[in-house]
C-alpha cells in the first residue's frame, strides 16, 4: 500500500528544496491520535514539520529529501495503527467508500443485534415478575450472549482497537473509557450468565455500541462531507473531459492527461476543467465557485475561462492554457489544503485539556466504584458504568476544529479564501483596517475627472475632441473617454499613436495631439490650465496647449457600501496609498475616511502598521496582494484582492476572490461569530459534562441513557458547527 501511496503523494517543492506530502490518516478519531502522529513523525530525522488536522484527518509532512524517505514517514504512521491514504484521485475516493461501507455494516449488525436482544430482555423482565421457567431464562440469557459476542467484536472493534492503540502509546484517548465500560459490562454479564444469577447487561452493551457508532458515522459524514470545502472544490472537477482531435473527432481522456494547448469541449452544464481561452464567439459562465459571485458572466472569443466555472450556456470549445494541475482552481485547492492541514492554536489547547479530562474520568470512576461498594454494592456496578459512558471528552476536542472548518467552508462559498489557520482567530480581534487605494478601493479602470480648457475651446468641445481621438487608441487611459459622446466631432484623419507620448489626428483641419504635456504642445501655459503637468492629460492643437483632463481611477461600485459595513462593525479605517496625495484625498473624502496618507512607500506603510500596533491596535491590511507583500506580512491579518491564478502568488492570510470588496465585512463578521461559536461549543461541552458526571456518579443515570447522552452531546457540537456552515449569511 505504501508503494502505491507514495506514487500519488510526494512532490518536491522546488523553491526551498524540501519535500512535502499530504495524506489522510484513516482511523484518526480523537485529539490524542492527532498528537501521537505529530509526535511520532516529528521525531523522525529530517522531518521539518508535521501538521495533523483532526477535523479533516489530514496529515501534512515536510522533510528534507535525502535524510528521510516518504516510505519511512508512512510506515511510522502505519505503525501507530493508522492507515495512510493518498488524498488525490480515485484511490482516496475508493478508500473513503470502503471505510464508509464498513461503518455501515458495523451499524447494521449492532442495530439488528440490539433489537433482537431487547426482545429477549423484555422476556426476562416480564419473567422476573410473573415467574419464568429457569431453563427458559437461561436460554434467553445465553442467546443474548451469543448475539452480543459478534456485536462486540465486529461492531465494537473500532472502540476496542482505538483503546488498545491508545494504551500502547501510553496516552489516554476517548476510546479508553468507552472500551473499559464495554468490556466491564460484557464480562460481568457473561459471569452472571454462567453462574445463572444476577443482572445481565447485554442490552446495554449492544445499545451503547449502536448509539456510539451512529454518532461517529454522522460526525464523520459531516466532517468529510460539507465541512471540507477544498474537497468540494476539487470534487467539482470532472474525472474525464472531452478532447477535440485535430481531425475533427473527439475523445474522452482523463483530466490529468490534459496539457496546455489541448482543445476541449465543455458540455452545457458541465464544469470547465482547466483554465483556457474561449474559442467560440461567446459563452455564459457561472464562476460562483471561484469568486462567490452568483450572477453568470459572459465571455467572448479569446477571453480567459477559469477552471472550476460552470458552463451555463450552450456547449463551448476552449483551448487549454494550463495543465490540469496548475489551473486557478488547483492552486486554490492547494492553498486551502495548506490552511486545513495546519492546526489553529485554539484547538491545540482544547486537545491537551481533553487528554487530562479522560484521565480525570478514569480516576473519578474508580472513586465512584469504591464509594458505592462501601455504601450499596448492588448499585456500584451500574453507577461506575454510567460515569465511564456518560462523559464526553470528544465534545471538548471537537468543538474548535468543527467551528473553524465550518467558518472556512462558509467563507469559501462566498469567495473568501482563508489560507492560514490562525487567520480566523486573529481576524475576529482586529479593530483597525488599513486600506490600499489603487486596485483595492478603486478599480484599475480609469475615469475622467475635472476638465480645464482655454475659453475659446470650452470644456465640452475639448472633451469631445479628446474622445474622438481616443476612439482610435488602444492605450488603457482611452477607456476614461469611452462614455463620452463624440458625435459632434468628425472622425479624425491621419491618426497616429506615439508610444509613451500620446495620440495625434487631424480634425477640422487642425492637428490635435493628446497625451503628455511636452507632446501635446510647447510654449507658455495658457490661462485657466493647471500648473502641475504630471497629473493631467493634455490636449493641444498645432503645438498650442488647449485643455487638460484629470484622469483618476474610478472608485469601486461597492466601495462605499463595503466601507460603511466595516465602519458599522466598529472598525477604525485608514487609507495608505502610494498614489499622489490629491487622488488619495479625493477617494478618502468620498468615503469619509479621515487622515488619508498619499505617496506612501512600502516602508512608510509598514511604519504605519507598526505604529498602530504599538498603540495596541490589531490591524487588518487590505491590499491588492501583488506589490504589498511586505506590508501584508507586517499586519496582524492581511487580505488580498485576487482573481484567478494570481491568488497562488499572493502572500496574504486571506484572499477575496470575487474582485469585490463586499467580502471583507462578511469575513470579519464570520470570524467574530466563529470565535463565538467556539466559545459556545466549549461552554456547552463543559456544562454537559458538569451536569452529567455528578448525576451518573449518584447512580441516577442508567447505562443506556448514558450511552444516548454521550453520543448526542458530541453530535450536538458538530451539528452546531454544521448549522453555522450552512446558514445563508
Amino acid at each position, binding site marked *: 500500500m505504501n508503494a502505491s501511496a507514495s506514487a500519488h503523494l510526494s512532490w518536491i517543492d522546488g523553491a526551498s528544496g524540501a519535500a512535502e506530502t499530504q495524506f489522510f490518516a484513516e482511523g484518526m478519531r480523537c485529539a490524542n491520535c492527532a498528537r501521537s502522529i505529530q509526535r511520532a513523525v516529528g521525531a523522525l530525522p529530517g522531518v521539518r514539520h508535521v501538521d495533523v488536522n483532526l477535523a479533516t484527518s489530514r496529515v501534512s509532512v515536510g522533510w528534507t529529501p535525502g535524510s528521510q524517505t516518504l516510505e519511512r514517514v508512512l510506515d511510522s504512521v502505519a505503525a501507530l495503527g493508522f492507515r495512510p491514504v493518498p488524498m488525490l484521485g480515485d484511490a482516496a475516493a475508493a478508500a473513503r*467508500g470502503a471505510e*464508509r*461501507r464498513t461503518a*455501515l*455494516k458495523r451499524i*447494521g*449488525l449492532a442495530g*439488528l*443485534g440490539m433489537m*433482537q436482544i431487547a*426482545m*429477549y430482555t423484555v422476556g426476562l423482565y416480564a419473567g422476573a415478575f410473573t415467574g419464568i*421457567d429457569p431453563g*427458559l431464562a437461561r*436460554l*434467553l440469557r445465553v*442467546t443474548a450472549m*451469543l*448475539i452480543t459476542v459478534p456485536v462486540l467484536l465486529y461492531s465494537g472493534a473500532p472502540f476496542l482497537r482505538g483503546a488498545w492503540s491508545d494504551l500502547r502509546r501510553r496516552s489516554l484517548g476517548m476510546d479508553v473509557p468507552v472500551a473499559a465500560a464495554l468490556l466491564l459490562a460484557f464480562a460481568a454479564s457473561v459471569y452472571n450468565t454462567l453462574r445463572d444469577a444476577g443482572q445481565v447487561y447485554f442490552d446495554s452493551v449492544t445499545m451503547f455500541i449502536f448509539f456510539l457508532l451512529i454518532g461517529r458515522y454522522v460526525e464523520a459524514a459531516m466532517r468529510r462531507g460539507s465541512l471540507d470545502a477544498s474537497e468540494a472544490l476539487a470534487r467539482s472537477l470532472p474525472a474525464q473531459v472531452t478532447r477535440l482531435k485535430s481531425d475533427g473527432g473527439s475523445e474522452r481522456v482523463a483530466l490529468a492527461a490534459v496539457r496546455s494547448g489541448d482543445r476541449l469541449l465543455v*458540455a452545457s452544464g458541465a464544469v470547465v476543467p482547466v483554465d483556457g481561452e474561449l474559442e467560440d464567439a461567446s459563452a455564459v459562465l457561472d464562476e460562483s465557485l471561484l469568486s462567490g459571485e452568483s450572477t453568470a458572466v459572459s465571455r467572448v472569443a479569446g477571453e480567459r475561462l477559469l477552471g472550476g466555472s460552470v458552463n451555463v450556456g450552450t456547449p463551448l470549445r476552449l483551448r487549454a492554457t494550463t495543465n490540469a494541475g496548475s489551473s486557478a482552481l488547483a492552486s486554490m485547492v492547494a492553498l486551502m489544503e495548506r490552511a486545513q492541514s495546519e492546526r489553529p492554536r485554539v484547538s491545540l489547547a482544547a486537545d491537551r485539556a481533553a487528554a487530562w479530562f479522560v484521565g480525570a474520568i478514569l480516576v473519578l470512576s474508580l472513586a465512584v466504584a469504591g464509594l458505592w461498594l462501601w455504601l450499596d454494592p448492588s448499585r456500584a456496578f451500574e453507577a461506575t458504568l454510567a460515569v465511564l459512558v456518560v462523559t464526553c471528552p470528544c465534545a471538548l476536542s471537537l468543538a474548535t476544529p468543527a467551528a473553524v472548518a465550518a467558518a472556512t467552508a462558509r467563507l469559501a462559498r462566498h469567495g473568501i479564501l482563508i489560507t492560514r489557520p490562525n487567520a480566523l482567530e486573529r481576524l475576529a480581534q482586529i479593530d483597525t483596517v488599513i486600506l490600499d487605494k489603487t486596485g483595492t478601493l478603486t478599480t484599475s479602470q480609469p475615469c475622467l475627472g475635472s476638465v480645464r480648457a482655454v475659453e475659446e475651446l470650452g470644456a465640452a468641445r475639448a472633451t469631445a475632441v479628446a474622445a474622438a481621438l481616443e476612439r482610435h487608441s488602444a492605450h488603457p487611459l482611452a477607456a476614461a473617454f469611452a462614455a463620452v459622446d463624440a458625435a459632434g466631432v468628425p472622425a479624425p484623419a491621419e491618426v497616429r499613436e506615439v508610444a509613451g507620448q500620446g495620440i495625434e489626428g487631424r480634425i477640422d483641419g487642425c492637428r490635435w495631439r493628446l497625451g503628455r504635456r511636452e507632446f501635446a504642445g510647447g510654449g507658455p501655459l495658457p490661462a485657466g490650465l493647471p500648473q502641475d503637468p504630471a497629473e493631467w492629460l493634455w490636449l493641444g492643437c498645432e503645438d498650442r496647449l488647449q485643455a487638460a483632463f484629470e484622469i483618476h481611477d474610478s472608485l469601486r461600485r461597492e466601495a462605499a457600501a463595503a466601507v460603511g459595513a466595516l465602519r458599522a462593525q466598529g472598525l477604525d479605517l485608514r487609507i495608505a496609498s502610494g498614489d499622489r496625495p490629491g487622488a488619495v484625498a479625493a477617494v478618502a473624502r468620498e468615503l469619509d475616511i479621515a487622515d488619508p496618507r498619499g505617496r506612501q512607500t512600502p516602508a512608510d506603510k509598514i511604519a504605519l502598521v507598526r505604529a498602530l500596533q504599538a498603540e495596541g491596535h490589531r490591524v487588518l491590511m487590505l491590499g491588492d496582494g501583488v506589490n504589498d507583500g511586505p506590508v501584508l506580512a507586517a499586519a496582524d491579518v492581511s487580505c488580498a484582492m485576487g482573481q484567478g491564478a494570481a491568488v497562488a502568488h499572493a502572500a496574504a492570510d486571506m484572499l477575496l476572490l470575487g474582485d469585490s470588496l463586499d467580502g471583507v465585512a462578511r469575513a470579519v463578521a464570520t470570524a467574530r461569530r466563529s470565535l463565538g461559536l467556539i466559545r459556545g461549543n466549549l461552554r456547552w461541552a463543559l456544562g454537559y459534562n458538569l451536569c452529567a458526571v455528578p448525576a451518573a456518579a449518584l447512580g441516577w443515570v442508567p447505562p443506556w441513557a448514558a450511552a444516548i447522552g454521550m453520543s448526542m452531546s458530541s453530535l450536538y457540537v458538530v451539528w452546531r458547527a454544521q448549522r453555522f456552515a450552512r446558514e445563508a449569511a
Partner: protein
Amino acid sequence: MSIALLLIPLSLVLLVVAVAAFFWAVDNKQFDDLENAGRQILEDTDEPGPPPPAER
C-alpha cells in the same frame, strides 16, 4: 412453553439472515450514493455504453 425452545433459536437464524442480507446490500454499494441515482435519469448525457459483445 416448550415451543419457545424452538422459536428462540429460530429468531437467531432470522437475525443471521437479516444481517447477511444487509451486508450483501452494503457490499454491493447499494448505499454508496443515495442521491445521484434518482437524478441520473433526468440527466441528458448520451455517453456511449460499453460496446456490445462481438458477434460470433
